[in-house]
């Protein structure tokens, strides 16, 4: 009987470890199971990504629809090329949709906001956003503001 | 010096030292089959070491230890473990496994070395425990036993596999007179009943003389005397007489080597 109790204890202990790991994975790191299966890739070029990083959110009307997977420099266009994965459920992004880099709060993290256009055709895997808006860089804004003040 | 008809353990020119201190120098010992042989000597002469050498737990610097013609120090690991299944050893402290019950302690060697069914193991264990008079204590844990009982359980474990050789390391040390009498009796009875060879390492003279068939006396890394208990009692050598009769002073001096007493005392002032 004593052996039985000990074995149950050990079993519960190991189970607690696995449950804890699962909770860490799902609740703490926000890992989604089967995340790469039902997504498609789209690309966007930006003048300036200003602090956007891989794994940043992609949202539409504030709702999470995907994430940034890769950022590199496009040597021909001399612009940043951002690769993002969008959930397959969201297959109604028209080809004239726009992607802009936004900031959560004044100093918060950067993310991409998508606004849908009016065309009937939709973005497919491998397509590009034609209409993009770069990150607002605080220094540029201040610079413009000062310049305007002086010129007036 | 007599020769035995049937020698089970034959130790030839054995040398062993620990650090710079020689424990054995070219020692020859023969152990007769089926008899009780005692290895005696003052504390610190490495009697326990001899048992460990026979069991292959230590390797000698030179010399051979033959058991039925097999040289222990030259055996491979597997052969050595097979050989150990033929030996039982009763350690000075009993060395029962403290985390399992008396029953499991005695069953342990059976489970390791045999494929007996659970019922068979139970029967054998109860027989062995009955032989040492502790069948009723089978469910106790070793920590609940008195010293004498623990040693008897250890004895039951040592004979669980019906070994050819049973080695006793200081079996009488630290026992009350009753437990000592019980042990003396047990060792003799078991030896007669099971027909194994017994080797007793001890410095308890009376008890050992009472049960041993043959005695080796070891001192200063050599065998200084050998013979039957009667021969030993009538031995004339000073060293042997001092040990057998328990005299405080003699060739083994009472005083640790020191400077002259008077000079030593006066030096302080």
């Amino acid at each position: 009987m004593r052996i039985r109790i000990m074995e149950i204890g050990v079993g519960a202990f190991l189970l607690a470890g696995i449950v804890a790991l699962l909770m860490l994975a799902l609740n703490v790191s926000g890992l989604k199971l089967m995340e790469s299966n039902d997504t498609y890739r789209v690309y966007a070029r930006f003048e300036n990504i200003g602090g956007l990083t891989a794994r940043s959110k992609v949202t539409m009307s504030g709702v999470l629809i995907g994430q940034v997977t890769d950022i590199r420099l496009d040597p021909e266009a001399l612009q940043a090329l951002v690769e993002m994965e969008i959930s397959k459920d969201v297959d109604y992004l028209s080809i004239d949709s726009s992607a802009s880099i936004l900031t959560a709060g004044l100093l918060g993290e950067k993310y991409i906001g998508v606004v849908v256009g009016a065309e009937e055709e939709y973005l497919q895997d491998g397509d590009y956003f034609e209409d993009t808006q770069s990150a607002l860089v605080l220094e540029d804004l201040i610079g413009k503001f000062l310049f305007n003040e002086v010129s007036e | 010096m007599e020769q035995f008809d049937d020698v089970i353990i034959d130790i030839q020119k054995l040398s062993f030292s620990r650090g710079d201190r020689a424990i054995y120098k070219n020692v020859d010992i023969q152990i007769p089959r089926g008899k009780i042989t005692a290895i005696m000597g003052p504390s610190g002469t490495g009697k326990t070491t001899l048992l460990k050498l026979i069991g292959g737990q230590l390797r000698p610097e030179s010399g051979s230890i033959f058991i039925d013609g097999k040289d222990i120090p030259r055996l491979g690991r597997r052969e050595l473990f097979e050989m150990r299944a033929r030996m039982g050893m009763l350690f000075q402290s009993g060395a029962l496994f403290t985390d399992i019950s008396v029953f499991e302690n005695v069953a342990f060697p059976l489970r390791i070395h045999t494929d007996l069914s659970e019922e068979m193991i139970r029967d054998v264990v109860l027989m062995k425990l009955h032989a040492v008079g502790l069948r009723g204590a089978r469910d106790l844990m070793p920590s609940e036993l008195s010293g004498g009982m623990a040693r008897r359980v250890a004895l039951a474990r040592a004979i669980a596999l019906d070994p050819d050789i049973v080695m006793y390391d200081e079996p009488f040390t630290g026992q009350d007179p009753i437990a000592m009498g019980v042990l003396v009796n047990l060792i003799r009875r078991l030896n007669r009943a099971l027909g194994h060879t017994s080797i007793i390492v001890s410095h308890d003279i009376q008890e050992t003389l009472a049960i041993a068939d043959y005695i080796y006396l070891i001192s200063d890394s050599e065998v200084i005397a050998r013979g039957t208990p009667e021969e030993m009692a009538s031995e004339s050598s000073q060293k042997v007489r001092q040990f057998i009769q328990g005299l405080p002073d003699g060739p083994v001096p009472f005083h640790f080597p020191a400077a002259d007493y008077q000079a030593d005392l006066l030096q302080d002032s």
Partner: protein
Amino acid sequence: MIELVARLGRTGLRKLEAFGLAGIILMQSLIARPAPTVMFPLVVKQIHFVGVLSLIIIVVSGLFIGMVLGLQGYTILVDYGSEQAVGQMVALSLVRELAPVVTALLFAGRAGSALTAEIGLMKATEQLSSLEMIGVDPLRRIIAPRFWAGFICLPVLATIFSLVGILGGAFVGIDWLGIYEGSFWSNMQNSVDFREDVLNGLIKAVVFGFVVTWIAVFQGYDCVPTSEGISEATTKTVVYASLSVLGLDFILTALMFGDI
């Protein structure tokens, strides 16, 4: 002068010899392990001993460390108006650093010292010799199961420590200090990466479990079988294991998160 060099050499050789012996023990117990049917109950017993019985101290320490982190993080971050980041700070520091390191230190004190003392006592009471005489290799029977148990238990304990710590931090942050629950968790989920943070923390725990158990069983197996010898070995276990954990943590952190 010559004397000094000679003494240095002797000490060095002795240390090298001890290290060699530790290596042999490691190899023997990991490679030459007994059949699974024999091994399994022994490992279960040891997991009970070093894992289940360490659970309380781990849960309590994890809870308090998480709560303290939440409180301290709040007082600092509230000055910058970014108290939502408390969740992120608590989770990252626990998962990456504190859970594996503190768990390993507690494990060394609670289970490591007990392992050393137990094996040392088995040596002192001739149980190890007795096993050998019965024809069982004590390395396989005694050392190997303890090894595997330590190996399995530390990552499990560290994971539980992380989770309990984060819950403690959440309790302080959300229920006590009134951080908005949604931003607390979403901030945490955005910044903690499963592979980068959780798995790397787990790898640290596995390495620490390995090292602490190794030191503990070696000190027990190698100790002088007297009461002073055992107490000295137990002290050594705790000191050496703690120092190794801290040193290794730096190296592992540099490899995992540093840009080398």
